[in-house]
């Protein structure tokens, strides 16, 4: 018998059922870790640390989840906050202007095939552009869901997607 996310959340909240929580982690670890790996520019070790912190926060804050949004939306918003505060702690500059300057430099591995090109090109987008593109174009979320995760207006998300795609087209010579 398979339980829905809502069933599992109820079990965790009612009896602190760690098996139910483990099942939630198992179901959602892949997209969260993939998203964080992209956000950290391919640093899988750091991405896993952030993903672990994300799920520990979920455990602590699960009683504040109201069920108004999808669980995955709520989960990704915690993951993005973890990424943002880690970047802030490391003193990384998240400003789009500064990252745009980096984008103008040619990517070193641009000739290793389109798949590698896309990875390299994504790394040259600003964090907000990359996050918006990954959430909407890769994970199939709506603009509204992405706006909720990124804590930005829907219009800003749409602009970031458009601008990010323009840059990708230029970088990939499409």
């Amino acid at each position, binding site marked *: 018998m398979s339980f829905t996310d809502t069933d599992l959340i109820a079990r965790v909240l009612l009896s602190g059922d760690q098996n139910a929580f483990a099942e939630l982690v198992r179901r959602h*670890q892949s997209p969260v870790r993939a998203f964080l790996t992209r956000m950290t520019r391919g640093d899988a070790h750091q991405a896993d640390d952030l993903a672990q912190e994300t799920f520990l926060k979920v*455990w602590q804050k699960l009683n504040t989840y109201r069920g108004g949004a999808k669980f995955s939306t709520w989960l990704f918003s915690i993951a993005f906050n973890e990424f943002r505060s880690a970047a802030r702690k490391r003193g990384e500059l998240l400003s789009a202007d500064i990252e745009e300057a980096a984008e103008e430099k040619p990517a070193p591995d641009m000739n290793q095939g389109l798949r590698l090109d896309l990875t390299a090109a994504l790394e040259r987008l600003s964090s907000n552009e990359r996050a918006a593109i990954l959430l909407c174009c890769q994970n199939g979320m709506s603009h509204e869901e992405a706006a909720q995760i990124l804590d930005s207006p829907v219009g800003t998300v749409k602009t970031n997607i458009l601008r990010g795609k323009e840059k*990708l087209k230029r970088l990939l010579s499409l």
Partner: protein
Amino acid sequence: MNTPEDSIDALLREQNSYQSDNGFTARVVKELPRHRRNWLRPVILLAAVIVGAMLAWWWLPLKNMPPLDFSKLQSLNSSVLSTWLTVLVVVGSLVWGAITALRSEE
């Protein structure tokens, strides 16, 4: 005909492959705080054990207990059997409650 944007979307979706767990879930579960809300259960059980022990001490005729005569225990109507059976049930319940409470705290 595919536009460049379609190609970008297709590439992004293609790269969205499943990331295998590789022990990630186990690491997360290992790091979970030991207690969540399950502190409530042992607390209630321990409180019940303490109250039960106090009531047993108060109500059971411990000072006037009939001697444990095994020949009289065989008769179902004997006062020896009913008294000792009550004591046994009360003590058994208290021990069970205490063990359960302590095990839930582990």
